[in-house]
């Protein structure tokens, strides 16, 4: 846990009862990416990459009726990410940006989000496509992708506007892996 949590301002002390949130992984994501270096940095770069999502047996009953959906949202723990800084130089930029205006993996609460294509469900394992996560990533939640909630129109993407077109070709360098052991 980062130091900045311990000196959080008094303004949030009234939420003390909400402050400790404990999550447990409900499964494991298996992908061809065993190292951070060379990983796609956005879902667009993970296009066509196949993998599996193995759900632990206690949670499998919750997979009923999932088969009819073509796309799913996966929430997962960015488990190799340690610590964070509130200003970072993103992969596709050369100047510092506020962390919450980026998708950098090192965040106060390292939760990652990917939209994947569901290919099949069998014995508690999902076959999925368009994965952009590291092999062994702990899964936290699965939600059906519903365009009216999850696909917005008339979107502006700030500093990313010009960088977006290049994202698909870009692969991560070692910028975020230095501290990973």
């Amino acid at each position, binding site marked *: *846990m980062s130091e*900045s*949590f311990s*000196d959080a*301002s008094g*303004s*949030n002390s009234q*939420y003390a009862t*909400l*402050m*400790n*949130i*404990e*999550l*447990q992984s409900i499964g494991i994501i298996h992908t061809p990416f065993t190292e951070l270096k060379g990983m796609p940095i956005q879902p*667009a770069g993970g*296009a066509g990459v196949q993998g599996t999502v193995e759900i632990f047996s206690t*949670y499998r*009953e*919750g*997979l*009923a*009726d*999932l*088969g*009819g*959906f*073509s*796309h799913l949202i996966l*929430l997962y723990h960015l488990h190799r990410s340690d610590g964070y800084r509130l*200003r970072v130089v993103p992969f596709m930029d050369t100047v510092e940006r*506020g962390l*919450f*205006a980026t*998708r950098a993996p090192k965040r*106060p*609460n390292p*939760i990652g*989000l990917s*939209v994947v294509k569901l290919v099949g469900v069998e014995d508690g394992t999902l076959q999925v496509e368009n994965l952009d996560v590291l092999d062994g990533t*702990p899964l*936290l*939640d699965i*939600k*059906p*992708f*519903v*365009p*009216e*909630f*999850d*696909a*917005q129109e008339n*979107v*502006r*993407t*700030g*500093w*990313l*506007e010009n960088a977006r077109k290049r994202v698909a070709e870009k692969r991560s360098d070692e910028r975020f892996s230095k501290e990973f052991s």
Partner: protein
Amino acid sequence: MIQLEPIGVVRSPFAEPSDVPRFAADRANVKGTIEIFETFREGLEDLEGFSHIVLIWRFHKSEEASLDATPPYDVGTKGVFATRSPRRPNALGLSIVELDTIENGCVHIRNFDMADGTPILDIKPYIPENIDPASVSLGWLEEARKAVLESLTD
């Protein structure tokens, strides 16, 4: 075990989760605010250029998780992961909302579905997915909606 702490809290006119309108159209122009705790405010820089943001939050008033969910359609129970039910393992919520302005650590938003006091865990810039709407199928939800539409036109 993964331990998390909120980065901020929602100020919303919906006092309780049950006050949040079910249909997006009924809350399209309702305004709310996310108060980001002081420690994290520096991370908001450059966010204002985005029209939409992704919020990851905690269903803090959700009852105990269940692997079965009963959606608000007459379709019986469904596996919880095939629904957006709040009563889910880890009780994580996900919303894409419209961003108006940011001032003094307050992020002003529109078209959201969080109740007052909801703890925010993460904010990410919204980047549209490259998904052809025609390629999206919605399983049981599609059938349930068709049935509702048909019942309305009867």
